[in-house]
């Protein structure tokens, strides 16, 4: 039964969009489950969301400390074994720090925090988190970050491009100087996805610019059911 899918959202100290991610999970029809950074327990969830925020203050580097938290210690092997994981903004930074995804997120090219409604192109609609989209589709999702410029060595970027692992791209203008306009990527299995934009803030036109973000959470639900 669809409603039985449990999707966990981790709260780190300094997580900010955790309640928004829980709301989005519920809006997509899954059961939202709160996970605590200090627990070595994933509470039998079927998928995990690492939400946006400034985990542990991010005074060293976005995600650098969170990567060593007990809960991430559980998530890393589970993800390797196929658990779908979505990292949003700070969550994407944590996934890169934890080497579940390649590359890194560094300070925006403009050196300023940027909050705006951003058009993205869906480049890969086959991952566990994007299968409800159509490839090439344009969607409108808020971004809000100061360290969102995706960088990696040329070989890694080549490989991502060659293997279709770029999931989202910024359409003009690129807000942060990310290489190849990359806004989000996935692992080889298509189960782990990280992106800088915030789909959880695009689930209701009352509070967001569109409802396009909801498809990410319903995608996860669909892939879990199938």
């Amino acid at each position, binding site marked *: 039964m669809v409603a039985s899918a449990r999707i966990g959202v981790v709260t780190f*100290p*300094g997580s*900010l*969009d955790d*309640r*928004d991610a829980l*709301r989005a999970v519920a809006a997509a029809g899954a059961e939202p489950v709160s996970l605590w950074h200090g627990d070595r327990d994933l509470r039998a969830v079927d998928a995990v969301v690492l939400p*946006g*925020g*400034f985990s*542990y*203050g*991010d*005074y060293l580097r976005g995600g650098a400390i969170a990567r060593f938290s007990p809960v991430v210690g559980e998530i890393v092997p589970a993800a390797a074994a196929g658990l779908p994981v979505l990292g949003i903004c700070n969550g994407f930074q944590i996934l890169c720090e934890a080497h579940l995804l390649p590359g890194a997120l560094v300070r925006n090219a*403009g050196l*300023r*925090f*940027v*909050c*705006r409604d951003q058009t993205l192109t869906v480049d890969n609609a086959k991952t566990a988190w994007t299968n409800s989209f159509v490839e090439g589709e344009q969607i409108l999702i*808020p971004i*809000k970050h*100061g360290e969102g410029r995706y960088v990696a060595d040329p070989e890694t970027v080549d490989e991502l491009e060659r293997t279709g692992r770029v999931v989202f791209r910024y359409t003009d203008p690129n807000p942060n100087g990310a290489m190849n306009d990359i806004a989000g990527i996935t692992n080889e299995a298509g189960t782990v996805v990280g992106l800088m934009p*915030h789909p*959880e*803030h695009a689930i209701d036109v*009352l*509070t*967001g610019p569109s409802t396009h973000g909801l498809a990410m959470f319903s995608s996860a639900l669909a892939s879990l059911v199938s």
Partner: protein
Amino acid sequence: MTGLDTVRDAEAQPEVDQPFAELGLKDEEYRRIREILGRRPTDTELAMYSVMWSEHCSYKSSKVHLRQFADDPPRIDAMLVGIGENAGVVDVGDGLAVTFKVESHNHPSYVEPYQGAATGVGGIVRDILTMGARPIAVMDSLRFGAADAPDTKRLVRGVVSGVGGYGNCLGLPNIGGEVGFDPTYGGNPLVNALSVGVLPHGRLQLAQAKGAGNQVVLLGAKTGRDGIGGVSVLASATFGDGETPAKLPAVQVGDPFTEKLLIECCLELFDADLVTGIQDLGGAGLSCATSETAGHGDGGMRIHLERVPLREASMSPLEVLTSESQERMLAIVEPGKVDAVLALCARWGVLATVIGEVTSGDRLVVTWHGQTVVDVPPGSLADDGPVYHRPVVRPDAEQDALNAAGTGDLPRPGGADELRALLLRMIASPELCSRRWVTEQYDRYVLGGTVLATPHDGGVVRLSEDSARGIVLALDGNGRFARLDPYAGAQLNLAESYRNVACTGATPLAVTDCLNFGSPEDPGVMWQFAEATRGLAQACRELGTPVTGGNVSFYNQTGATAINPTPVIGVLGVIEDVSRRVPSGFVAPGRTIVLLGRTEDELDGSAWAWVEHAHLGGRPPQVRLQDERRLAEILSRLAARSLIDSAHDLSEGGLAQALVEAVLVNDVGATVDLENNLPMFCELFSESTARAIVTTSDPDAAFAVAEQVGYSWSEIGVTGGRSLVVQAAAGNHDPDSAMRFEIALDALRSAFEGTLPALFG
């Protein structure tokens, strides 16, 4: 003096020269301290009195004027906590209450823009938390010197990234505010931060230390040497020339991550009913928190000061008591609940230390490793500070000359081509251009409750997912109108904020104010202050919206030159159903544009006079409070029936500015036909008040609703197209027999958007 100066020392050595003047205390104030104590104060006591009796903490020059807000406020049923607490609290229905307040952090932001602005946000958020509320949004009102002045770039970049850096990391949406430029603020920028929070009625907290034996627990960050004397030597004195670096240590340093943990931790403490009283540590640090909670309690308090966790072990008791280190709270806890409090704090990684207890006596006693360094009646620090009736003198010659120099003699453009060029210059000026470069640096989405934010007229936040109810906030403060007439200027600022709230479809409910002025020791400045408070109190009565709290910032002056008096006014409104909120931009083509309100020839003090002629003189626009009430009533009724799909207030820059802003939000153009009652220049740029433009797809039904209230209603055009067209039929006023000009949306956008990035990007 070396070593520790104890109460015993003070008794034994009564005649010691004490540096009270350097600490900002006057001779008479020092004498009063000796009288209260019956001896000379210890060094530590002297430092505490100097911070608590500073202008910033004691309101000694403003108190007699602020009483107008408390003594005869308009009565509203919704008021739960009025003026005098950390922040006012109003009932908004569904068992929920809202608390909100605006506060200045002007002086620190000039010395160190990033940290000054950041801790301004942090401080006001803790005021909201202290009431038992979850902070749900922030706003800011910023004033800088001329946009192209040499120091402005440093200040704008620092302040904006400080407001953003703190608020973004704290996870509070920034839902609006304002930015202004004027040479008057060149040496005295204004940074006013507002926060709003929501609480269930039962969670209301008070800053009281009651119940002998209850424990005093310090929560949050360690105490360091930052911000010592911030309220006295920094915030309660004017800047001399070239002295800001020396005041750098008086600026606090912010850590939003610690504040985020403190918020979550305190809310859990409140929900678990673990504290009996709570107070934030802001200006004057522990001196303020201990004396205020003890002064408002039912007994005394004893503090074992050496228990306070320090960043620097060598700190003296004086430094510990006056440090303004951020992200700290003081909780009063029953002995049986202390373990639970410490455990909950540990879960959140929040440092918590029992530093003292409530006593049955009536003294605030502070010991340092067993020796008594402070023994005072707490109320003498917190409530019984000096009260001054400062001389109030209208500077007749100067003010009369200013009021006489109206805009009548300035050349006014007439032809369509001139007006078109003027409009493009106006919207590209720092005065009126897009604030996107600023607001894009603020997270407006976090917490998921933001329904409208900048550039809409008010910020709208849904209070909970279980309810359609929302609150609306707007913040306005025109300093030029207040310079021309402080009484009317304060009223006009209230009227604008009130109108902005009404434009979103909400009902205005209550007011918070941040009164930014020059030195109270200048009788001319005190006249401005007295007039502004009198005007504001009167207007609040007329609009039925009480002042629930706020802040006074004096000494915004460099040398003998004071800033333009700048009363920044925040209005809170309630909207029953946030899905019926009204945005400011045109949403679709084919809608009828209606101008509500009458336009007069009112250009003194206007954006046009300033931008085109650097002119400030004459009289501000007429205050029309009864009209504002009618306008708000109509907007509320139209919104409730979904008869309008946009509403935008007319203020700075007049109709021209409102139209440009409205067409650019969603790239929906408009064609406007003016009636030619006045020259087109006046119709476009006059700043007459109590006006708004709305759009409707059913003008007849909308008019019928408006007619029930009765107000000036002019259908002036229709939305649609890719440009803004302004035209007027032949009439008596304009040189061209029929006037018409057109500007493509792209041209409007590039003029409107380009200025701030070019200046500061």
